[in-house]
């Protein structure tokens, strides 16, 4: 059976994990595929609608690891320079995601008013079984367009590698791990205060 990203030990080098072919060896059948697709669309709708608390409560597993890295641009021939080449823009657990959500929804978060709007496009969905029958690997692409104030439109785009988990007795999947190696090295959209 295929490997499971939720089990990868430190150091977790995201750009290598994203290309680990062993993750993609066991495509899921149509039923699992539809369940995963519907999870991602539901999540996109909730995040577009800023239902952040519901997103956390209903779709995010308490043992979540939410990881977004940025990888330093180095020569393909680089061999000697041994310092780490990735920085974690996000490396959050459930409590840390909750802090972000409460920060965003706080009535004294001045940047949240007037409201900014989001529109997500989720594509290229592929679903794979893993060596744990409760977990599936889901790969997808995400394009998120954020519009702020009168003149600001920001684009965020990435490939996402998710582990969705369905514990015994549960009807629905929850997000157990999300790994993104953000492709744009210098983020052009002012900040990355969005959930990808």
């Amino acid at each position, binding site marked *: 059976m295929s490997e499971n990203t939720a089990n990868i030990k430190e150091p977790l080098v995201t750009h290598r994990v994203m290309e680990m072919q062993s993750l993609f060896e066991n495509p899921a059948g149509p039923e699992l595929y539809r369940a995963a697709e519907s999870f991602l669309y539901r999540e996109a709708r909730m995040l577009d609608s800023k239902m952040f608390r519901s997103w956390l409560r209903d779709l995010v597993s308490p043992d979540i690891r939410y990881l*977004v890295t940025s990888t330093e*641009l180095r020569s393909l021939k680089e061999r000697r320079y041994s310092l780490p080449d990735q920085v974690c823009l*996000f490396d959050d657990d459930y409590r840390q995601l909750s802090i972000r959500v409460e920060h965003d929804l706080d009535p004294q978060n001045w940047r949240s008013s007037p409201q900014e709007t989001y529109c997500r496009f989720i594509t290229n969905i592929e679903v794979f079984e893993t060596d744990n029958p409760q977990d599936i690997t889901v790969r997808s692409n995400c394009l998120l367009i954020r519009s702020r104030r009168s003149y600001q439109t920001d684009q965020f785009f990435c490939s996402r590698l998710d582990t969705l988990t369905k514990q015994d007795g549960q009807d629905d999947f929850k997000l157990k791990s999300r790994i993104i190696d953000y492709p744009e090295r210098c983020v052009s959209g002012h900040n990355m205060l969005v959930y990808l």
Partner: protein
Amino acid sequence: MRDSLIDVATGKQRHEIQGSRAVFEQELEKIFGRCWLFLTHESLIPEYGDYVVSRMGTDEVIVSRQKDGSVKAFLNACRHRGAQLCPNEAGNARGFVCAYHGWAYGANGELQSVPFDEQLYEGLLDKCKNSLHEVAKVENFHGFIYGCFDQDAPSLADYLGDVKWYLEPYMELSGGLELVGPPGRCLIAANWKAPSENFVGDAYHVGWTHSSALRAGQSVFSPLAGNSVLPPEGAGLQITSKHGSGLGVLWDAYAGIHDGELAQELMAFGLAKEQRLAKEIGAERARIYRSHLNGTIFPNNSFLTCSGIFKAWQPRSENITEVFSWVMVEKDMPRDLKEAFIKSVHRTFGVAGYWESDDNDNMESETFMTRGYQAGKKMLNSQMGISGDRVDDKLPGVVGKSAIGETSYRGYYRFYNDLMTSDSWAEVSSKGSNWQDQLIRAKS
């Protein structure tokens, strides 16, 4: 017209300096062409041949560790047709080869080979005269490496002046720092001075701008949320220096903006080290080690000690700034604590930092409003505490009367004005000979 951009005597600045193209073009010559600019840290280029590509104003420079251990910096442009020599951010290389025609330079900047040199140039190309353009001065402050384009500038130590005394406990006497890369990078629609002035001396905004961050993530600063309390007199200090660098001190706030269990572990680590340091360097400076400093090294290099944020605000234009965010951390911090700390710094003040985003909105709107013709001509106010600035016999620099004040803003723009109105370092130095009096005399 230039003189009226800044009014040192009353602590005011013309709003248009935060977004005028004409002012920005002068700054490239008079500020970025003359001042010491942050390049990198020793911990990021430890070995011979290690390099990073850094920014000095709008220029890219290769900063390279030499065979003898020294550090040199060169413009990242081929001498032939000016193409970008090194497209990487960091690495180890004995040399750099231009992708255009293949001109090859050593790590020391010397032009080493040119394809078909003999046949095509017939011996007329003098390689010795085509080394990479070298940055005039490169110096080091406890591992932090700065470069300066102006041969006539004072030494880095003299340039830092009075702020050194406050920085040494954390940066040196603590056992030293490492700078953790790679940096987070993003573009903000703000003039480079907007974040620089905020970090140099704005403790005032914390309780209000960061109200939501203070409430969501419980840190030692959280009681300030929503301006519900004013830090008492004596909660800290604010100081400025001859060359515009300045900082604020919040006593004993070692855990800074970090929250939860991490904050508790940090407090325990800092307290134990303060007690040990007190025996070696005295209680006063040991307390500074464990106190939270916000500061800017003039012109565009900012930090929060203890919180661990280290920034370069690199100008791309009058209203676009590229933000580089590193973590600075004590070398001897235990590995697990260090790793949690690094992630927490980026979580709060990185590209996706929830504290950082609060600030960026202010900086962007301060810049955005300079588009208004009338607004741009108006003077902005940095007069808080103006009659309380003093010279203290124990504390270096010009010292403000409380932690919350705008002394460091005034010192920052006093020096800015000297640079913008002078034609040489000699003139700058002469204008600043009575810099303390200029600040102490200022009145609203």
